[in-house]
């Protein structure tokens, strides 16, 4: 590499910081969605960098399904205390109590889909005009066609066939009253980039990403954690084994990986050698070939 060559992680960082600053400059009331997963942790780290030494000029928003791993919630609260950032929490339980959504029943019941309503209600309630998310284009095929600045109509819906062209570094965030934007600052990162960046920047992560003993059971080839609200079939027997999370969603749909990785270096080796995608363990994507596209159209993350 010559003198002015910068590596791929610094270039991705520069691009994402540019996007986050554009959001702060172009919108009146932006918010950054935070799930406690590695992607939103990296995105928040980039936001800290973008505005230093000033504080991040927008709040974070956590959509809490009520089915989170406790480790995620503890990590979230510690991070906010350390950085002085503000994190709003919107509860899916509130949406259920208000009758806005109906709880799914049965063995594969999940609140994953219900989050969309809670999210859209929170956006409307706080009058947010831009919501940044940690979605990456390499995650899923419907995401591969997503823009950095993704326009949503007054119902929060995405129209994949009518997206605004996005050229150079020129992002068009203009909208009518009641409409909003979803913005994806780390669109161009792959799973490997995220892990390498976490390593390079020495970013602290929730303990769930490293190997630990946990009571689990197997369903359709996916290892899931047990929890009071997880209904087990008769043939599903819980057992305690060494696992870690490759992605973190809520307990009902986060597939766990058999792993002994307990450092970031171990995880990078594991990801490099892995032969299935990280979403391969996500029960929410297995529902149908266009599961993600359908949820995104309605206003999912």
């Amino acid at each position: 590499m010559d003198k002015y060559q910068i590596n791929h992680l610094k270039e991705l960082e520069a691009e994402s910081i540019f996007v986050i600053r554009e959001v702060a400059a172009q919108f009146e009331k932006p918010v950054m969605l935070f799930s406690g997963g590695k992607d939103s942790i990296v995105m928040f780290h980039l936001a800290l960098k973008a505005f230093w030494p000033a504080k991040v000029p927008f709040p974070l928003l956590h959509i809490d399904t009520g089915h989170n791993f406790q480790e995620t919630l503890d990590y979230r609260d510690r991070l906010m205390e350390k950085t002085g950032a503000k994190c709003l929490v919107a509860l899916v339980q509130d949406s259920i109590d208000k009758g806005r959504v109906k709880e799914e029943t049965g063995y594969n019941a999940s609140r994953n889909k219900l989050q969309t309503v809670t999210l859209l209600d929170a956006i409307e309630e706080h009058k947010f005009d831009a919501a940044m998310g940690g979605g990456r284009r390499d995650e899923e095929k419907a995401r591969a066609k997503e823009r950095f600045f993704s326009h949503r109509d007054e119902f929060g819906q995405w129209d994949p066939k009518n997206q605004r062209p996005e050229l150079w570094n020129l992002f068009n965030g203009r909208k009518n009253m009641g409409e909003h934007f979803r913005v994806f600052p780390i669109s161009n990162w792959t799973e490997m980039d995220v892990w390498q960046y976490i390593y390079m920047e020495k970013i602290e992560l929730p303990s769930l990403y490293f190997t630990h003993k946990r009571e689990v059971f197997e369903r359709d080839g996916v290892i899931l954690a047990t929890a009071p609200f997880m209904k087990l079939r008769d043939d599903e027997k819980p057992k305690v084994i060494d696992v870690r999370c490759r992605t973190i969603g809520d307990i009902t749909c986060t597939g766990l990986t058999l792993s002994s990785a307990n450092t970031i270096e171990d995880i990078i080796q594991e990801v490099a050698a892995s032969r299935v995608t990280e979403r391969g363990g996500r029960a929410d994507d297995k529902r149908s070939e266009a599961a993600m596209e359908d949820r995104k159209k309605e206003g999912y993350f």
Partner: protein
Amino acid sequence: MSGKNSGYLDMELLRFTTAGSVDDGKSTLIGRLLYDSKAIFEDQMEAIERASERAGGEQVNLALLTDGLRAEREQGITIDVAYRYFATPKRKFIIADTPGHIQYTRNMVTGASTANVAIILVDARLGVLEQTRRHAYIASLLKIPHIIICVNKMDLVQYKEDIFETIKNDFEAIASKLSVKDVRYVPISALDGDNVVDRSKNMDWYQGPTLMYLLENIHIGSDINRDDFRFPVQYVVRPQSREWPDYRGYAGRVASGVVNVGDTLMVLPSGFSSKVKSIDLFGEQYQQACAPLSVTITLDDDIDISRGDMLVKVGNGQPPRVDQNIDVMICWFNEKKLVIGGKYALKHTTSEVKCMVKEVQYKVNISDLEKEHNNLEVGMNDIARISLRTTKPLFFDSYNVNRTIGSIILIDEATNETVAAGMIV
């Protein structure tokens, strides 16, 4: 970290675009690159195998990997730009995969806007077509620094050297009319993998590099303008905290050139000058910053600077031009036609102004590359040279010398849609 992965941290990033229609084997080529670089995972492969079976195909259709939306799968066409990622130990690659039909010129332009390299596929049986000319023209219009012509399906022409040479000569004739600097030619078979990642055993006569070797080794360090320092101010950082009561930093991304602590910078449009006090990023202090880094710059003097202003280095290279009248090559993106005399919002770097279309000088017939002076109606996917007058002066470089500082988009203020991409002449 152990040897294996520490090397990964030093990869360069290369963005390329692929143009061609399904029949050229474009999706097969992308599938091949992803497959051979092990970027396709087992669950994705299984999904493709299932889908190929359903569609009744004999071979696993790697093209299915790139059809993301339901409508695309149903209709068997690609509608939108799709982004794909893979990496080798040397470089990380971002592919902007764009459909090649004439009605999707706007997607090709979009994909080309940030690319270092354009891969243009030519079917060995058909040779250079009107479509090849169109793709080459867009690559040259958007100033993609490197073009790789992949002559595909060599297996169907018995790997004959003279066929490859004819196509090469035909394309060189086109390239000489366009301002493309660096063109490479590779004979390949995407289906069998000949000269894609591994050298072909069927074409001993070809002594040049494989496609993957080119992608890994083409020199992209000079693609960015290193001479003229340009820094559009994106955001003013003012903590006003007890710890940082007087900090005033200008946040932005270096568009071109290099800046050092102590350099004298001029502020546009005010014309004031000051020296660089620090270059900051999250507590880290840089002595120097080059494109395309995002940093925050502080200056020795208190000057009124806001978003949309630009910091430039005095005394080296050309200063930016300052003008309210600009000529622009545009690609029109909207079903609503361009209105002569119409007013549009114009985005340029981090600033936004209004502008009026004074005249359409000519349209480019994208099939034969001739200029049309008679029919000046500019509609969807048309490319034209127009003259604009802006409400405030822009400070800019021509697109030829600076892709970031020479590019604009036009926005219809009634619909908020991006209606055109423009390259300042």
